[in-house]
């Protein structure tokens, strides 16, 4: 970005900066250029606004502006040259050195805009070279005539000049051959070149001695556009591209130029080239300043990607590839000249990726409770369309690698959405002209669509995509309340063994999937499964962090800024969140239904240590310790009081408390879930009641139970039978009387103790055996107990599937292990991640 560039953008302000620059040049020091750049950058930021407000000004006095800008620059140079000449006379090499540096910088700028190097510079170079040489010569002859710093500057100067001469070798040579001709040539060049790179054209032309007046009559607002013709398009494009990424390039201006170029472009090739450049520069626009791309910019980028895809999809003679052979950027190419397909360097898939990432980033940073968020969210539809178009394009050209990536992107947009949203998204796709093979209308249902997309990804060779597709697929099944399929898929994928070595994003997806599976089980009334599934994640107590829905505050550890940043980038946008309060409610309620009857069934303190759900037990203990309990406010309060009511056998109170939890309204099919819960509470209430009060009865009428718990007699009988069969209840049914007959033996103290000691001794032998196992090296050591461990992995999982009854003993260890792995995995990843960053 230099004054030349800036000038057309904000003409009215030119007077001032130009002036200041003049001033600076007059009494400059070497550091000035730095501050110069800074100030320019600042002014860039408000550039956009200025440009519009000053548009009228521009029309008023273009001549003055242009003259001053160009003259200023040349004057600057010449002034520098003068100073140098003067310094040369007094042999002040320090001053020369400084001035030369400045000059080189100015030339560099000139060069950035691909303007010809002024003859003046070349002349100066040549004179400098000779004078340096002669001075050096003199120095050798007459010793110790110069002070140390001067001598130093002289040698430095020698190097610099040498380098500069080398850089401009051809010009210097030409000049040396015939200085006159060279200068003439230069003047001609700038005069003739009326449409050179970027906006500098008119100005150079103004300097050129020829037809000043003509030039200015045609240059107006419209005239400026005319300059970008399709013939010179590549030159313009190259100019823009060369300026790209350099320190003082005005990005907004570049985008504007490119936009004009798109309109001008005549052939497909030109359009593709310009679009590629335009989209990249849009993405470049604000890398450092703000957290995300402004929506307007994003939208135009999205439209341009669409345009690009359409062009390439419509004409199979053009192909955009990441790797191509070198070609001349300045030459128009067509299928005819290339004999076949024209290959252009670029990557649509990276644009799509970037577009999607920017979208997510903007959602991460916009306040989710404002209207802005909702507005932004509406853009998902167009984004989804773009992704689908890209998919269609890759399907057509059968490029499997980018196709996989683009399908993954598409899947990520729909896998967690309810049907209605997917339908809306798909409806938008249906209207577009380029459609992928898999659409909702073609597949019939969302599940089929997700299935089709996933199946493609399973077949693709990329294992990361496969894993993610698998998880998304499971998530979708869970969302659709298809618990069995989701569970089987999760178990068969064996992901829980390898997930801790996956990348963080995949781990998050895994956690989400597991949690959704748990919720699905809960909705389907599979309380035990829900409890077991959600258990893992709740024991870590870092639910939010594991789901990437909030940053966990670590108590003893301060996060470095990089860690914090990385963490922030991982967060999911708000609309993808799984409501943690709902999650907790589901978990605690299912824990209650599992745990309370269990609590009631155990008698001795010893057995009380067998805890299924630690978080629940902790809350319950806490609630027990409170002296006074007020009316419930939070979800937890509700559940705790409900648990107590259940313990006391008051199932109706329990039901009312549970059903009055407000958060259920967030759950789809809330009514049926509540109904299901009521039924479960009745059943578990009956069980708890029997466990708790059995010692006080010798017989108990079934019909009474049926009435108390408003359950049909048959259900009561079935429940009681089950308890008797499982030896949970020492009783028998008397059919003729319709009663339960309890058989209870009161153990004497010594009998009880004898049992306890027998248990303890058995436990000790177990421990010893385990210890020996470890000492002997693993499970294959000795004894015959290894068959249990040697079961295939799925065996273990099946046990897991079989539910709680059997795993009470092993489960705790297992769950703990897995829970640890959960957190460990994430932690490790985080460390290594940030470590890597620091390394870079």
């Amino acid at each position, binding site marked *: 970005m230099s004054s030349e560039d800036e000038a057309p953008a904000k003409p009215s302000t030119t007077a001032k900066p130009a002036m200041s620059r003049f001033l600076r040049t007059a009494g400059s020091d070497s550091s000035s250029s730095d501050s110069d750049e800074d100030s320019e950058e600042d002014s860039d930021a408000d550039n956009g606004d200025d440009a519009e407000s000053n548009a009228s000004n521009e029309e008023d006095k273009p001549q003055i502006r242009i003259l001053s800008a160009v003259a200023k620059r040349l004057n600057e140079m010449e002034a520098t040259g003068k100073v140098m000449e003067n310094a040369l006379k007094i042999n002040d090499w320090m001053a020369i050195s400084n001035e030369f540096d400045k000059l080189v910088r100015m030339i560099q700028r000139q060069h950035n805009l691909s303007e010809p190097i002024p003859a003046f510079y070349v002349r100066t170079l040549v004179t400098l070279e000779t004078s340096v040489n002669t001075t050096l010569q003199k120095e050798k002859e007459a010793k110790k005539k110069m002070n140390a710093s001067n001598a130093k500057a002289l040698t430095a100067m020698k190097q610099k000049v040498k380098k500069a001469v080398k850089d401009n070798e051809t010009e210097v040579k030409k000049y040396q051959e015939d200085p006159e001709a060279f200068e003439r040539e230069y003047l001609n060049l700038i005069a003739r070149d009326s449409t050179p790179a970027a906006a500098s054209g008119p100005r150079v032309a103004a300097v050129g001695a020829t037809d000043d007046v003509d030039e200015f009559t045609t240059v107006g607002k419209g005239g400026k556009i005319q300059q970008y013709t399709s013939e010179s398009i590549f030159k313009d494009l190259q100019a823009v591209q060369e300026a790209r990424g350099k320190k003082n390039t005005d990005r907004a201006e570049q985008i504007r130029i490119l936009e004009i170029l798109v309109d001008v472009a005549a052939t497909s090739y030109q359009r593709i080239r310009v679009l590629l450049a335009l989209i990249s520069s849009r993405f470049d626009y604000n890398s450092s300043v703000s957290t995300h791309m402004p929506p307007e910019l994003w939208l135009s980028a999205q439209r341009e990607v669409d345009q690009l895809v359409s062009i390439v999809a419509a004409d199979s003679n053009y192909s955009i590839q990441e790797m191509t052979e070198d070609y001349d950027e300045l030459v128009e190419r067509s299928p005819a000249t290339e004999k076949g397909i024209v290959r252009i360097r670029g990557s649509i898939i990276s644009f799509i990726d970037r577009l999607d990432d920017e979208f997510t980033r903007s959602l991460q940073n916009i306040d989710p409770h404002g209207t802005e968020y909702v507005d932004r969210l509406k853009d998902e539809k167009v984004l989804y369309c773009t992704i689908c178009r890209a998919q269609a394009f890759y399907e057509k050209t059968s490029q499997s690698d980018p196709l996989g990536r683009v399908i993954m992107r598409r899947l990520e947009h729909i896998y967690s959405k309810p049907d209605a949203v997917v339908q809306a998204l798909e409806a938008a796709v249906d209207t577009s002209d380029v459609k992928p093979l898999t659409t909702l209308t073609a597949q019939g249902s969302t599940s089929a669509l997700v299935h089709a997309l996933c199946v493609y990804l399973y077949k693709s060779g990329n294992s990361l995509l496969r894993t993610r597709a698998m998880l998304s697929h499971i998530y979708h099944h869970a969302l659709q309340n298809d618990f069995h399929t989701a569970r089987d898929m999760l178990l068969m994928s064996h992901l829980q063994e390898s997930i801790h070595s996956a990348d963080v994003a995949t781990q998050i997806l895994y956690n989400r999937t597991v949690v959704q599976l748990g919720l699905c089980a809960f909705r389907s009334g599979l309380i035990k499964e829900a409890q077991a599934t959600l258990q893992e994640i709740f024991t870590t107590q870092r639910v939010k962090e594991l789901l990437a829905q909030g940053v966990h505050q670590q108590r003893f550890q301060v996060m470095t800024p990089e860690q914090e940043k990385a963490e922030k980038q991982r967060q999911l946008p708000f609309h993808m969140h799984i409501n943690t309060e709902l999650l907790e409610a589901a978990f605690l309620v299912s824990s209650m239904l599992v745990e309370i009857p269990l609590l009631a069934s155990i008698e001795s303190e010893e057995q009380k240590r067998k805890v299924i759900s630690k978080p629940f037990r902790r809350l319950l203990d806490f609630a027990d310790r409170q002296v006074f309990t007020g009316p419930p406010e939070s979800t937890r309060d509700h559940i705790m009081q409900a648990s107590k009511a259940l313990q006391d056998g008051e199932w109706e109170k329990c039901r009312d408390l549970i059903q009055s939890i407000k958060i259920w309204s967030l759950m789809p099919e809330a009514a049926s879930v509540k109904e299901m819960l009521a039924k479960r509470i009745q059943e578990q209430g009956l069980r708890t009641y029997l466990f708790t009060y059995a010692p006080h009865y010798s017989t108990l009428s079934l019909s009474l139970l049926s009435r108390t718990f408003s359950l049909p007699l048959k259900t009561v009988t079935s429940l009681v039978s089950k308890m008797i069969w499982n030896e949970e209840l020492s009783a*028998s049914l008397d059919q*003729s009387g319709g009663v339960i007959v309890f058989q209870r033996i009161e153990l004497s103290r010594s009998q009880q103790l004898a049992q306890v000691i027998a248990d303890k001794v058995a436990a000790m032998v177990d421990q010893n055996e385990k210890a020996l196992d470890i000492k002997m090296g693993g499970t294959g050591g*000795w004894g015959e107990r290894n068959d249990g461990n040697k079961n295939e992995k799925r065996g273990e999982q*099946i046990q897991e599937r079989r539910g709680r009854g059997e795993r009470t003993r092993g489960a705790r260890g297992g769950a703990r292990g897995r829970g640890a792995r959960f957190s460990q995995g994430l932690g490790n990843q985080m460390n290594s991640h940030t470590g890597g960053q620091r390394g870079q």
Partner: protein
Amino acid sequence: MAQYDLSKTLIPYLDRHLSFPLLAHLGETGLFPAEEVTVAQYELAKGTNMFDYAKGLFEGIYPGETVPAEFDQKRTNAVSTNERLQQEAQAVLDVIENPDVAQALRQDKNQNLQYLKDNYNLTLDQITALYNFGQFQYSYGNYTGAADYLYHFRVLSTDAELNTSAHWGKLASDILTGRWDVALEELNTLRDAIDTRSAPSLLGSTAAQAQGAVLDPALGQLHSRTWVVHWSLFVYFNHPQGRTLLLETFLSPTYLNTIQTSCPWVLRYLAAAAILSRKAAAGLTTPATPLSPRVRHAIREIVKVIQTEEYQYSDPVTEFLRELYVEFDFERAQKALSEAVDGVLANDFFLGEFKDEFLDCARFLVSEAYVRIHGRVDIENLSERLNLSQEEGEKWIVNLIRESRMGADAKIDLEKNVIDINRPPQPVYQTVIEKTRQLAVRTQALGVAIGRPPQQAQQQQQKPDQAQEVLVN
């Protein structure tokens, strides 16, 4: 009752030849129109070399039409091929049947090959002729011959893939000839081969199995296991000890997984086998071999599996177990039972013969559960649950009490027409004794294990009682 017929699901997992008996059975049951079954048989036979059979079927289907000429042509072809293959095979056979050779052959196959090559000029190619001839014989229905040749081939050949294929072929031949003992042996070796090797070569060329191009090993193994599961049904439901062995095999984790993943319908046979072997498991008859815990707790295991797989598969047989052991709804269990016996078992190819035994065992299960839950049982009620008349019911119950060890606890009160069951709870000292019984032995084993150097300890898979002996010495 056609909805419970599994033939259609089973046949894809069977060899062409193995499907004939199934189809013939279908023809007998009359679940499907006879013509359709015959057409199906014809379609099957067309693909084999059993031309006469196919011809007969063809005439049956299209009476009056001339038999396509291709049959005769194929027939002559087959006969000539047969002769050629026989000659090739005969050369090898001559050598092998020489008693000198038979003596010289050792365990090591490579050495054997070398020996045959050196002394009798037999090469691997010639031995392969055995395989070819065996396979050809199989294709036209000479199963005994096929089994012989394939057996000889397997003894000599080192080609893993052909060996596996020969395995399958021999198993099929043995099944079709009805030599169940041999088939059982064959089945076990085949299973071992599948379990130990995970190479994709397991997918032998047997019949339609070679459809997949390149499958990954795990998938290949799953496929082979699925096939084994299906083929073994033939053996297990015909061999006298088959049911117990079936439970033993199918309940092992690998096969249970296979069933759950790829063929949940086999659960029917698993459930039926469990019910059938229930009496044996309860220790009423004295089995020669002690039963493994797996078989003893078969029903419990199976009920769990049935519960998990309920969403995938259920039929009256599994329904019966579920109602009985999960819901404890005796009425519905009764209903499911009668449906299972009349609708499913009567028409099932494998289970048909066990219909009565199944009913008997199922009743036993019902009454066992009933009696265990109830303290006082109305005989009338129980008879109803068992689908018996009162008198029959009484007899049945008396037998039950006599046979089972409830004798001491249960008494029939004829006046009130009830059974009183008085099961005193286990005394505390007994439980303590039970708990501590094993401890001494286990501790001794520990001591011995510590005494040994670690490597030795790892090599010897020591049983506690052995350990005891060591200690005594």
